[in-house]
Structure formats: structure tokens, C-alpha cells
């Protein structure tokens, strides 16, 4: 009852002139530790009730018909996306995945379910940093430059929408457009929204940035730092040690079940500490960057981690590329890939200027004045460096709200989080 009253109050408040950010008093997220929150996400008891069975289709579309896909990427036959549809006229949300994320990742699916339940259509877009986007949808094949990424995402949105409407006919009828994205997808959303102000293809009613980085450079420095702090050997020792301790517990458990709850219990009993969790997060991030770097290297024939001028057969060992690629991270990609690439196009762009362009600071004025854009994050989000949280609070004012805990995107399917997120979108109806 209290919940209904709160949401009702929010809706009433939003009907007035200023938009009040959702209150967070009822918020209950069990991890006060941002690393655990980031790794494990929301435990079952705290999750929002979301429908399992929704109207959803996955499609593959040929976005670059003139391009031939290299043999080593035989499994990327086209650009993959999903669409959730209401079978009646309804607004549509475009949702953009975070770094290395695919349209069908866990967080993307949770968003789809929440939006479906609230009466929206959804199109889920894979991150431009994921190999599927790089191989099948990107012209530049050099992701990370937010304004350029936004142009490619904007094109992909138009093409997937037309494709989905063609496939689904009356089942997908769109009234208005909305936009969201989490993590890097949040930063992308801001740049896509800015582009949409000029091109007006969608004329988004509301845009929500979820746990966005402020500066990609700062965030990447933090995440790469988790690995760099201990080095490759240190990381290996940590992974081995965790496997041994968790394995020891598994071998003594009464019953082995491969459920999130069971694995969580095993990690807790193995006393995995924050330092180790941070390295696991760094490892996951490193695996993403290795995939991304490999895709860029193959598609652009750069010869960094693959042989230059060499056609990789689908049966060929690429383990050497994995070893080379995983020895560097996003920072090296920025310094040795992106900076030279963009300086070649425009010699006047300094490294410092590049760092600024890869941040929300570059859009500060727009974000401050655009009443349709909102932002949600957590006070303990690990990807935010010193002044970043304050920048977000100052920039978004009462269009932004901050939960005390939840780590990086750990609370995205928590009950209050989902209610608040939906209330934000509903406030424009």
C-alpha cells in the first residue's frame, strides 16, 4: 500500500512543473559492499516481480550488405537484436547495453521484462563495443568515441525498427519513443539523445542514463587498474586461489546445485574478499576488451594481435591472439588505437581533448538544460572517480537520483529501483 501511495505521489508530483526525482526511502538492497553488489547483483528475495513470458522476438538483420564477413567470424551472420511488442499501439523504448554487452544479456532482459509489464514496446541494442556490432554494423570499427558511436547506434535504431515493423506488422505499433542504456550504454544514450535533437527521427520523450560513466578514461583507468594493480601473475594466482577455495567448499557441500544462490553461498564460505572481487570484475572487463580488440584488429587489418594481411581460417588457433590481447586493456586500446586513429583524421585533436570528448562533460550544457533526460546511479558505483558523482548530481539536479548502495548496476532489478525507473518514464505520459 505504501508503495502504491509513493508511486501515486510521484506521479502527482511529476504532473506539476518541476519533475521531482523519485524518493528512495523504501529502497532495500542487501549489499553494502559495492564489489559484492556488482558481482552478484540483486538476490532473489529483493528482485522486482517481473513476468517470465513476454512477447519477444530475436531477429538478425544485414546492416552492411556490401561487406563480406571474415571467415573467423562465421558465427556473426548479421546484426542481432531483440524486440518486445505489445500487440497494440504503445510507446517504444530503445535500450542500449553496457561495455561488451549483448542485446540478450541478463540486465537487458530484466529491462525488457520491466518495460513490457509497464506497457512498452522495447528494442534492445548490443553495445558498439561488442564484436557483433563491430563486425556487422559499424562503419568505422573503432568504438569508444561516443559521438561517433552515437551516429552508428542511431542508424542501427532506425534500421532495426523498420525491420521489426516489417516482420511484426500490426503487432508492433509505436506511439512515442523513449531511450535508455546502462553503464557505457548510459553515456551512449546521452550522445544519441543529443544527435536526435538535431535529426528528430525519434524525438525522444524521455531519456534515462543508468549508472553512466562520467569520463570513460577515468572509469577505464579504475577497471583496468584492478588487473594492473596485481599484474597478470597476481590475477592468475587470485583466480587459482578462488577456484581452489570455492572448489573445496563445493566438494564438501551436501548438495551441489548450479544456482546463483548456491554459488553465492560458496563464495561467501570461501571468504572471497573485496580485493579478490575487484580482480574478478577486472578480469571480466579484460575478457570484454580482448574480444573487442580482436574484432577491431581483424576487421581493420591492423596487425596488433593478429597477423597483418592474413586470412584467419575458421579452424585456425587464435589462442595466441587471446594471450596477446589479454595482456593489454582498454587503456592501451585508447592510447595506441584510438588516439592515433583520430589524430590521423584531425591532427589538431590533442590527447586531452580526446579524453574530454569521451565524457559526459562534453555534453554538460545540454544535460543541464534538457528536461527530458534523467539519470540514476549509486553513491558507491565503482566506475565513478573522485569528482564524478558530484558532477552527475550537479548536472542532473532533481532529474537525477542516487541510491546509497548497489555498486555498478548491481541493483537494476531491485523492486524499488524498477518502480522508480518506470515512474520516471511514466511521468511524461
Amino acid at each position, binding site marked *: 500500500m505504501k508503495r502504491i501511495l509513493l508511486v501515486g505521489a510521484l506521479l502527482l508530483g511529476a504532473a506539476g512543473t518541476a519533475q521531482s526525482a523519485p524518493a528512495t526511502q523504501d529502497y532495500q538492497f542487501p549489499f553494502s559492499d559495492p564489489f559484492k553488489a556488482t558481482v552478484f547483483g540483486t538476490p532473489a528475495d529483493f528482485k522486482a516481480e517481473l513476468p517470465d513470458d513476454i512477447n519477444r522476438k530475436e531477429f538478425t538483420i544485414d546492416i552492411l550488405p556490401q561487406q563480406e564477413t571474415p571467415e*573467423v*567470424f562465421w*558465427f*556473426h551472420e548479421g546484426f542481432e537484436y531483440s524486440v518486445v511488442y505489445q500487440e497494440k499501439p504503445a510507446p517504444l523504448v530503445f535500450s542500449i547495453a553496457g561495455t561488451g554487452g*549483448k542485446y*540478450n544479456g541478463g540486465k537487458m532482459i530484466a529491462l525488457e521484462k520491466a518495460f513490457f509489464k509497464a506497457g512498452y514496446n522495447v528494442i534492445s541494442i548490443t553495445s558498439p563495443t*561488442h*564484436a*557483433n556490432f563491430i563486425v556487422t554494423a559499424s562503419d568505422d570499427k573503432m568504438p569508444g568515441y561516443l559521438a561517433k558511436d552515437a551516429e552508428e547506434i542511431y542508424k542501427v535504431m532506425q534500421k532495426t525498427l523498420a525491420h521489426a515493423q516489417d516482420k511484426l506488422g500490426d503487432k508492433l505499433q509505436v506511439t512515442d519513443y523513449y531511450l535508455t542504456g546502462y553503464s557505457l550504454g548510459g553515456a551512449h544514450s546521452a550522445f544519441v539523445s543529443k544527435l536526435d535533437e538535431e535529426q528528430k527521427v525519434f524525438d525522444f520523450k524521455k531519456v534515462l542514463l543508468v549508472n553512466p560513466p562520467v569520463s570513460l578514461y577515468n572509469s577505464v583507468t579504475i577497471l583496468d587498474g584492478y588487473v594492473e594493480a596485481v599484474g*597478470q601473475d597476481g590475477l*592468475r594466482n587470485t583466480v*587459482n586461489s578462488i*577456484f581452489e577455495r570455492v*572448489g*573445496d567448499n*563445493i*566438494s564438501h557441500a*551436501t*548438495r*551441489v546445485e548450479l544456482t546463483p544462490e548456491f554459488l553465492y553461498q560458496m563464495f561467501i564460505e570461501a571468504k572471497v574478499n573485496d580485493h579478490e572481487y575487484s580482480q574478478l570484475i577486472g578480469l571480466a572487463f579484460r*575478457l570484454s576488451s*580482448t*574480444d573487442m580488440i*580482436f*574484432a577491431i584488429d581483424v576487421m581493420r587489418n591492423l*596487425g*596488433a*594481435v*593478429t*597477423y*597483418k*594481411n*592474413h*586470412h*584467419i*581460417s*575458421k*579452424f*585456425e*588457433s*587464435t*589462442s*595466441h*591472439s*587471446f*594471450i*596477446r*590481447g*589479454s*595482456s*593489454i586493456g582498454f587503456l592501451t586500446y585508447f592510447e595506441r588505437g584510438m588516439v592515433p586513429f583520430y589524430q590521423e583524421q584531425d591532427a589538431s585533436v590533442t590527447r586531452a581533448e580526446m579524453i574530454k570528448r569521451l565524457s559526459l562533460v562534453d555534453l554538460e550544457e545540454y544535460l543541464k538544460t534538457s528536461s527530458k533526460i534523467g539519470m540514476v546511479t549509486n553513491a558507491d558505483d565503482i566506475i565513478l572517480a573522485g569528482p564524478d558523482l558530484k558532477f552527475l548530481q550537479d548536472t542532473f539536479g532533481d532529474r537525477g537520483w542516487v541510491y546509497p548502495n548497489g555498486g555498478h548496476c548491481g541493483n537494476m532489478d531491485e523492486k524499488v529501483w524498477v518502480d522508480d525507473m518506470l515512474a520516471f518514464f511514466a511521468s511524461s505520459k
Partner: protein
Amino acid sequence: MKQLNHVRNLVMATAAVLLTACSATPDLEPDAKEPRLAHPDTSQMDPRGIGYVDNDPWEGFNRRMYYFNAKADEYVLLPAVSGYEYITPEIMQTGVNNFFSNLGEVSTFLNSLFQLKGERAVTTAFRFVTNSTIGIFGLFDPATAMGVYKEREDFGQTLGYWGVGDGPYLVLPFLGPSSARDGFGLLVDSLVYNELIDEMGLKSEEEFALFLLRSINARKQIPFRYYATGSAFEYELIRFLYFRARTLQIQR
């Protein structure tokens, strides 16, 4: 089962030739250039690492088989699973899974004995007897409801328990990741399974139908989808996880 054994022998003989004949090393063009990023020194590399390759001398064969499996999955196995799920009521699907799971207890029982794990042998025997009787030929699983949980022991684990190393990585047709040791173990376990089936005195068509049903059910139980993450290094990651998982299973 006779025909199936012949097919299996043929496949194994072919595989033995292919194992060493196929290459995974790059066939470089004259103007190809060495990658600019130096290859880190791997001579001291942890054999349990993700990019470790020395445990994979048959990589050429394995990668071809991995590709074959991915395609077989897409065109044969997954459509068969979907068809099966479409025409079979869920309660029957559960019954089918329980039935094959119950037959598998025999192997677990024997291998528990081989590893001198007395308690596990007893609980497994209890499960088999309970589920085969009260559970009507294993279609139901009352033993789990009684708090006696299923364990898995196979001959690969038995060999591992007695100190036999994994041997080279081996990707088996349809079945996927394995190793020289575990592939051999699978052969031994399947002899036991075939004995059990022979005991049922089925006609050969019935045996074949049972084989199909078992295969479809086995695939249905595994949520893995090839290239679902889109990572070009899935082969490496699966290889890494396979050896890790087996170490844990042997340890348990």
C-alpha cells in the same frame, strides 16, 4: 545396440587418424606480418590458464569438431529438442529425464565403489532401488524428495581419483569437450550402460528410439548455446572451464 557400436567404432577409427592429421597453425600468406604486440613468454605459464595451449596437441582436430558440433547443434540437435518439447507434455519430459538419470546411477554406483567411496555407493544404491520401485522404473524421483541427493561419478573421475592425468583436450563429436582420459572413461561407462539396455531385451528399433530419446534429453538438460556470447575465444574459454570443472568433480 550392435549397429550403433559399429558406427561408434568407425567414428573412433576415423578420429584417431584425424586427431594428428589436422593442423590449427596459421597458413600464412607471403606478405603476412607477425602481430605487433609481442607474444608474452608462456614457458612459465600456468597450465590452468585460459590461453594455455600445451594441453591441446590435437587442436586442429578439436577445432574442426567444435565447429561441426556447433553446426550439428544448430541444424539437428536443437531443432530436435524444440520438436520434442513441443509434442511432449512437461510432466513426461521430466519423467524421461528421471528415467535416464536413474539408469546413470548404476555407473555412479560402480565408480563410487572403484573410488572406495562407501557412503556415496550406499546412497546411490538407495536412490536407484527407491526410484526404480516406488519411483516406477525411475520415472519419478522420490529419493530426492527424501533428501537423498544425486551424485555423479564416471570412469574418467575414477581414473582421475587414482591419479591419472587429464591427457590432451579432446572434443568429441556431438558430445563436446572431453579429454583423452575422460573420453576413454566415457567408453567404459557406455559399456556398462549398454549392458543395462541389453538386460531390457529390447528390439533393435526400440533400442534406437531409446538412443534418440536419450540424446535429445541429454541435450535438453544443457543450457549452453554455441557462440551465445559472441566471443571469438569461446573455444579457449570452454577448454579452460572443462579442465577446471573436471578437477572440481574429481575432488568431490
